[in-house]
């Protein structure tokens, strides 16, 4: 007896967002990255093929992050002292995109200047041909100052500028609009807050096909279920036709997983936690996989081995 499988038919679909611009398009990238475009829940190929594969972005810093887990610093080694070398190593490790996080202070201990930020971003752009996202250090005034300078110095590159939050989005959106860049809109694990920020950004006249949304997640064991369900609900709303949720989702499992004690600490923990390095990588891989299952379009990772495992898993997911 043949089984009649019920198929969902959806009214809506996710927008396609193109990150990066080639020389022909006004930028300098060798490759652009297209994400989104889903017409069904991710990987359910019997309903609709995924038009663009979920991407793995790799987080790098403008200076060596001494507070990172030793497991991470050892894995990358000396390249963490030079963002261009780090970007190349990330590309070699399989990155589809680089996420460059600017620090609040430079090597000299003084507040990072726009000139230094621009210099670093330009150096990374000339070191690799991948699309690039640039995140400020997370302090509103400084973020705005740095990102405006970066946006103006890289006009036309279609960088992703981050992070827009409800308390600080206008300046970043305005400079992205003026200089042909994209933005990432972050809200704390809530469907309505995510919609609201997308509406505010759209109200400024900024086209939604240049917005990635970051609904935020917790790490495995630290509230991932909230992010997981918020993402499932956002994607279902998008497929049902709610225009303000029809954006590709970018999430940061690397950042979340690597701040947990389980990933960060190797000594003085229970024996049942097992091998530190493997546990830490598993923490990142399981966090990332869970978010991919809830329809993430871009996962930002940190460890080279996690990048390898998650990329392999995405390949398998698409080979239904």
């Amino acid at each position, binding site marked *: 007896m043949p089984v009649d499988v019920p198929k969902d038919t959806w009214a809506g679909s996710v927008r396609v967002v193109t990150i990066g611009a080639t020389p022909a398009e006004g930028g300098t990238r060798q490759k652009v990255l297209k994400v989104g475009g889903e017409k069904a829940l991710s990987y359910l190929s019997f309903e609709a093929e995924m038009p663009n594969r979920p991407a793995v972005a790799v987080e790098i810093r403008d200076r060596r992050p001494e507070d990172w887990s030793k497991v991470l610093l050892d894995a990358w080694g000396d390249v963490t002292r030079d963002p261009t070398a780090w970007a190349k190593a990330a590309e070699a490790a399989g990155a589809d995109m680089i996420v460059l996080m600017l620090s609040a202070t430079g090597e000299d201990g003084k507040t990072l200047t726009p000139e230094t930020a621009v210099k670093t971003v330009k150096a990374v752009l000339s070191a690799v041909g991948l699309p690039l996202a640039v995140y400020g250090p997370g302090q509103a005034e400084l973020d705005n100052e740095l990102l405006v300078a970066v946006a103006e110095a890289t006009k036309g590159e279609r960088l992703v500028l981050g992070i827009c939050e409800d308390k600080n989005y206008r300046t970043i959106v305005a400079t992205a609009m003026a200089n042909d860049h994209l933005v990432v809109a972050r809200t704390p694990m*809530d469907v309505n807050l995510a919609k609201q920020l997308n509406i505010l950004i759209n109200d400024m006249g900024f086209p939604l096909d240049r917005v990635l949304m970051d609904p935020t997640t917790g790490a495995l064991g630290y509230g991932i279920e909230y992010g997981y369900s918020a993402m499932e609900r956002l994607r279902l709303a998008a497929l049902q036709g709610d225009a303000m949720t029809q954006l590709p989702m970018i999430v940061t499992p690397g950042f979340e997983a690597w701040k947990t004690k389980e990933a960060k600490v190797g000594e003085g923990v229970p024996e049942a936690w097992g091998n530190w390095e493997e546990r830490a990588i598993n923490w990142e891989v399981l966090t990332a996989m*869970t978010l991919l299952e809830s329809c993430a379009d871009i996962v930002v990772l940190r460890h080279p081995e996690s990048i390898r495992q998650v990329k392999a898993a995405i390949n398998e997911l698409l080979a239904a």
Partner: protein
Amino acid sequence: MALSGIQIYKLLPQTNCKECGFPTCLAFAMKLAAKQVELASCPYVSEESKAQLAESAAPPIRLITLKADGNEVKAGNEVVLFRHEKTFYNRPGIFITVSDDLAIDDIKKQVVEAEKFAINYVGINLAIDGYAVQYQSGDAGKYAQAIQAVREATKKPLILVCAEAKAAAQGLSVLGDETPLLVAADTTNWEAMADLAKEKGAALAVTADSLDALSELTEKIKGKGVEDLVLYPQADTLGKALVLNTQIRRLAIKKNFRSLGYPLIAFPQTPAAAAQAITKYAGFVVLKEFKPELLYPLLVLRQNIYTDPQKPIQVQPGLYEINAPKPTDPVLVTTNFSITYFSVANEVEGSGLPAWLLVADAEGMSVLTAWAAGKFDAERIAKAVKSFGVAEKVSRKRLVIPGHVAVLSGELEEELPGWEIRVGPREAVDIPSFMKMAL
């Protein structure tokens, strides 16, 4: 067709005897309609009604319980595709594979080692649920010995991974009164496996690589009188596994499709596949080896995904004493979301430094979420300080707030005159060094 609550009510005794655990027959009928209870809970329902209700009363995914010596692992009885629609109920059992190829002593050693595995996660004890004994030796006698050895080292339920009915029979013969799971019946061995499962009261996994073949097999096996089935869809990629598991879950829940209304078993080969098995519908997860560094995150993932989204795990708001604090010791404030509380409490405890931990009522949300939702603001923190009589317990009025809500410090100084407000680290993991350096 499924019956409505009212239709079911008409078939019940309508005596409101309460023996089913519900206050009225109508309440019980509503639960039956929602497939959240079994008709067997009603002791007085007539045979005639039973037959009529059989269809409506059965849950869309049959509940399968593996048992051994008082230990149980349940799978099935799920009612939704997405956890936010209600919740996922029965956390998938995690089993560790033991091969009969090893020497008996090594088998015992492996299981004894794995049995020691125990994790305390936010006050919940996590452990392995059982063992899957794999028939690899090709020697039925050896297989039975291996099962015997595993059984001596653990009291937890077993899965017999053995497609040869004769070897499986010999394996089962060393087990006493328990309900193991036999893996698996396919198109070639199903008759012998079904007979064996029936004779021994074992649950039986059924395997095939398509839904058509799977449902055909379950129908045939049901015809032999074996009802406790588990589905083992064969998939060579994560994508195919996701599609098959989703289709099976959908057919069962949306279409009440009986021949696929059983829990699923998965044999993930990578950490990524194990994560998918937990999120996407496996009822039993068999890992290829005992690796604590994978088990720990996997058990935590299971706990997270199967948390009832309507009920965040909360701790009681109040003033908690850590490491026997004195009146001069600092007061740290956080929210009553359990994960937040345990992260902070563990760190303070681990630091060895005494402190008062003030847990404010933030409706069970974490610091950032509660702050964004207006449930963890200066007013609420001040209220907690006052209502739990913190000022009477301490002589030095010093309050440390989480770094994520540093913006509240000005307002708090106004709300709590006479208190010194300090901004602590953003992450719990940095609390010990903060306490040593800054307090």
